């Protein structure tokens, strides 16, 4: 088991190196390089750009720059934000709690939706509930998350005035209720996106499991239907679901970027789009590396969970 995980992690390292080199090359080889935004500003004198280029080490050979960036990055020195001069690590760290809050509530809500929907629609296959949820998840999968966010804002914040349209707390109000009200819409968007994808997979793997001999045998032994579905079928169908969640970890990252940006939720996702708008490459670079690393870790963790749920996996 431990060796299995170590091997998975070892595969991840070269991948991260390749990604970082590619993105580094992309940013630095583009016309103007990282300073492109200054080049188009008439108030910045060419002499200043040269000085800045030298100060940032941008006049050195590319491989040399990449190497020193990589060495510094590994040591935890992620450089300084191009837009406000603060350390990149500080800017990221202050955004972490908001993202963890949003993502964890969304994951819980998505699972709370997925399991009953996936199980019930598989057990009552072809009935109205199955048709309704299959159609809903199809729409959920096809829905652009940012537009769904805009719609919720228009309906619940602007037209009805029930919920605050954006942010994490109302300045000067605060308190748990206010906080929860801010959390409702972003969570709804992110959880719906995830649950639409997950419930389809759970339904599929439940349908497969229900037909298998050990489930039929459990039914034949006269066990209560509820017990057969939950203890025998669901437990075995969870394995594939966990495997799918690993593939969807990247979806979660994209979903968080989109949702946080639409609702101005002050997390890492909105930091990314803010950095994007300001061409703040040091922040973008660090965020891409961290999110890729997070997805890989998430994958490995999910593989471990899969192996615990279903011992046949380890090999």
């Amino acid at each position, binding site marked *: 088991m431990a060796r299995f995980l170590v091997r998975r992690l070892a*595969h991840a390292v070269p991948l991260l190196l390749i990604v970082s080199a590619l993105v580094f090359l992309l940013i630095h080889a583009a016309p103007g390089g990282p300073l492109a935004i200054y080049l188009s500003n008439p108030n910045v004198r060419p002499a200043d750009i040269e000085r800045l280029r030298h100060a940032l080490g941008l006049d050195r050979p590319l491989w040399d720059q990449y190497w020193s960036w990589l060495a510094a990055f590994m040591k935890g020195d992620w450089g300084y934000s191009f837009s406000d001069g603060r350390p990149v690590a500080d800017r990221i760290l202050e955004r972490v709690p908001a993202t963890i809050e949003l993502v964890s509530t969304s994951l819980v809500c998505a699972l709370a939706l997925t399991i009953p929907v996936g199980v019930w629609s598989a057990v009552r296959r072809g009935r109205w509930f199955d048709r309704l949820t299959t159609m809903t998840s199809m729409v959920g999968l096809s829905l*652009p998350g940012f*537009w769904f966010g805009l719609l919720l804002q228009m309906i619940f914040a602007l037209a009805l005035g029930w919920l605050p349209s954006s942010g994490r707390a109302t300045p000067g109000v605060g308190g748990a209720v206010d906080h929860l009200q801010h959390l409702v819409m972003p969570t709804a968007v992110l959880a719906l996106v995830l649950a639409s994808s997950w419930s389809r997979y759970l339904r599929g793997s439940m349908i497969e499991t229900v037909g298998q001999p050990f489930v039929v045998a459990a039914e034949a032994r006269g066990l209560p239907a509820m017990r057969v579905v939950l203890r025998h079928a669901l437990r075995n169908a969870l394995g594939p679901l966990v495997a799918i969640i690993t*593939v969807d970890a990247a979806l979660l990252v*994209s979903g968080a970027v989109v949702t946080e940006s639409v609702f101005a939720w002050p997390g890492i996702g909105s930091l990314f789009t803010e950095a994007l708008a300001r061409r703040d490459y040091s922040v973008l670079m660090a965020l891409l590396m961290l999110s890729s690393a997070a997805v890989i870790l998430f994958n490995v963790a999910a593989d471990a969970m899969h192996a615990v749920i279903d011992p046949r996996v380890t090999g």
Partner: protein
Amino acid sequence: MLVCLIGAAAAAPRLAPYAPDQIDLSARRSAPSAAHWFGTDELGRDVLARVLFGARVSLAVGLLSAVVAGAIGVAVGGVAGYAGGMADAALMRTTDGVLSIPRLPLLMIAAVVLQPSVPLLILLIGGAGWMETARVVRAEFGALRGLGFVESARAAGAGHLRVLARHLLPNAAQAVAVSLTLAVARGILIESALSFFGVGVRPPQASWGNMLYQAQASLSTEPWLAVAPGMFILLTTVAVNLAGDQLARRT
């Protein structure tokens, strides 16, 4: 529905009641009415006309990026599934690796650096979307390889390329088609997201995503600007995904 959408996009110059960038300052920010079914934006441009012309960009990006993704995916998955062994392991490891890079953020960075034209945007989105097809093709080819007809074709003197293209691909055509429809829907969604964040299709050219980007600023005063483009994205992706489901069910 899909045919209607594509037809409407193709016939946009005839169907549209106004030119997509015709500015009418006397009818700025007007709500939907008989003259402007979907209303007008802050420059008095007709939203219906812009949605129809935007459909051309959005559909073109979706369809062509799926072609790019499909070509790479079939090549990678085909070689992996047919060759097996080391090549298979290396290619599939790469595919899994690329899958674990968050696609949207990576494309956003690429788009902000490269400021892509529409053709380059298609290449970027397609280049980031081949992995699912590669997996499907690899699984199909791997299963087909063991069947007798591949061996008999080889024995009859067919080269590897010919076996791949003439014998294996037609047999996997349905699975490839299903994965391509999914790629079309994904391409449309990614284009709209990139444009929504201001790094995809650039104004004044209309795309559904950049119309929503402009609508976001005036959500409280002109909500109709946000309704039509989003509706069209949703209708298109639902239609494409349903078509994919239908195709998949025929197996």
